[in-house]
Each structure stands twice: as C-alpha cells, then as structure tokens.
C-alpha cells in the first residue's frame, strides 16, 4: 500500500472524519496548535536570544535553560499531539502538500541542531555559562534555531492556504 493510499485510509477512519467535519473540534485543535507556539517556540526564542547575549546576559545560560525547559517541553508536547490530530484529519492533502514536506524536513534539522547542542556544548556549559564570550558554535546553533523555527512557522501558515 502506498503512503498516499494509507493517508487516504487514515483520514477516512471514523474518528479522523469526525475531527475534520466537526465545527467545534477542528477549530479548537487548530487554535491550540497555533497558540501553543507561545509555550514551545516562544520559550526557545528566549534561550536562543540568551545564547546570543541579546537578553538577560547577566544570568547563567544553564539557569535559564533549567527554568525554561520544564515549560517548553510540555509546549512541544501540545504541538506534537495537536499537529498529529490535524494531520490525521486531512492526511492525504497534507501529505502531498509541498510546504508540509519542507516543514517536516526543517523540523528534523531543528532536532539535529538541538542534539548537536546537547552533545557538544551542554556538557561543558559551566565553563562559559556567565562569561562574555559564548562559544561561536553555540551562537551559530542559536541563530540556526531562530531561523529554522521561523521557516517552520511560515511553512505551517503557508500550507494551510492550500488545504
């Protein structure tokens, strides 16, 4: 079975159909997906801007990370669950949408970007936590993160025009 026909089957299941056709559920799920941007990407922006020393330069990066992540992670959880439900509801059209594919690709790159930070810079954070010079690499990761999240948001907005 091809992926497209699998998507077709998925969106024809009774519960996917009920989400798609509900005047209440669909707007609520879509609205939650968009407004949870504030919890997820909104909080990651703070961390990225701190790495670039544009906000709160007097506070330790590790402290900001510890304070922000417990809220950002549930935010990404909401994004993932609501995004999955939106995908189920319109799987076939979404899967064949070019913006959706770019969005998924860039999301994977964002994940790799964050992983590089965790592996390469997180372990030694104590060494430069408060210093005036955040490592170049960590700053590059922050810039990439900001740029990629903007692409993800834009693709999410653009894809909806073609559904």
């Amino acid at each position, binding site marked *: 079975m091809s992926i497209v026909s699998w998507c077709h089957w998925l969106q024809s299941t009774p519960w996917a159909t009920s989400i798609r056709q509900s005047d209440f559920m669909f707007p609520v799920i879509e609205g939650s997906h968009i407004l949870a941007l504030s919890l997820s990407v909104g909080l990651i922006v703070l961390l990225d801007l701190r790495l670039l020393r544009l906000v709160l330069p007097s506070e330790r990066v590790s402290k900001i990370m510890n*304070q922000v992540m417990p809220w950002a992670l549930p935010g990404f959880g909401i994004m993932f669950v609501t995004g999955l439900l939106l995908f189920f509801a319109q799987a076939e059209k979404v899967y064949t949408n070019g913006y959706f594919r770019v969005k998924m690709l860039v999301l994977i790159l964002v994940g790799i970007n964050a992983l590089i930070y965790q592996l390469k810079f997180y372990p030694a954070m104590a060494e430069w936590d408060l210093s005036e010079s955040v490592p170049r690499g960590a700053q590059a990761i922050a810039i990439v993160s900001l740029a990629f999240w903007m692409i993800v948001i834009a693709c999410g907005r653009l894809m909806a025009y073609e559904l």
Partner: protein
Amino acid sequence: MSLQDLWRMSYDSHTIDILRNSKYAIPVIQSFHLFGITLLLGSMVILNLRLSGIGLRQIPMALLAKQIWRLAIGGLLLAMATGFLVFLPDPARYAANYAFRTKMVALCVAVGFQFLIYRRVIRSGAAESGSPRNIIVACCSLTSWFLVGWAGRAIAFLG
C-alpha cells in the same frame, strides 16, 4: 478621515491592489504576523509564569520586567503592523466579521491593561513574590492576550 473613506481608499488604491492580487503577499505577511504573536505571547507566558510565582523563580523579576517587556512590545508592534496589512486589502470583510470585532475590542482591553496596570505591577518590588494579587494580575494578562489570539483564529472560521 471616516471609516468609509478608509474603505474607499483601500478599494481604490493601486498599491493595495498589489497586496490583494498577489498570491503570496498575504500568506507571507500572515507568517510574519505569527512570528509577532509567538514573540508577544511567548514573552507574556515568561512574564506571567514569573509574576505568578509558578515558574522561572530563579530569574529576578526586575530583569525580566525590563528585558522581556521589550521583546513583548517588539512582538506586539510586528503583529500590529502585519495585521494592519492583512486588514487593508479587504476592510469590509473584516469589519463585518464578529470574531474580528471581538479581537479588536479584546486587543484594546489587553493593551490598556498592559500599559496602565501590568507594567506598574511587574516593575514594583512586590512583583518578586507570587502573592495572590500577582496571581490575579497574571491571570488577567494571560486571559486577555489569549482571548485576542483565539478571536484572531476564529476570524477564519467565521468567514
């Protein structure tokens, strides 16, 4: 200038025709509208988590009140400028939309609250602890901004 003049100017203007007729202009502007919203609502989440005392407790409120406030204003200005550009090509459609009207009223309430009450609260020394008063102010702030957001989302569903 009356609202009718604005309508006429919008529908007669050749410059605004470019916005109206381009396939990508409005979607791209909408994307920037969302960047602004992410920045604004993200900043409000940060400030209110701290103000209510349930999150980010190790970061001094005085610092957040200064620096995150600026981010919030930046996000608000971006969202308002792009929102105006989305509104301009088709003012009659938006003026007739109840969700849009609700959004504008909620926006005025949120901005008024933000500048008249909220700013003072987060800049006072009493903002460092999560007192009942601070929790109420944080709830009012978040509710007003998310009401603007939800009303904005509802515009599309009410046609």
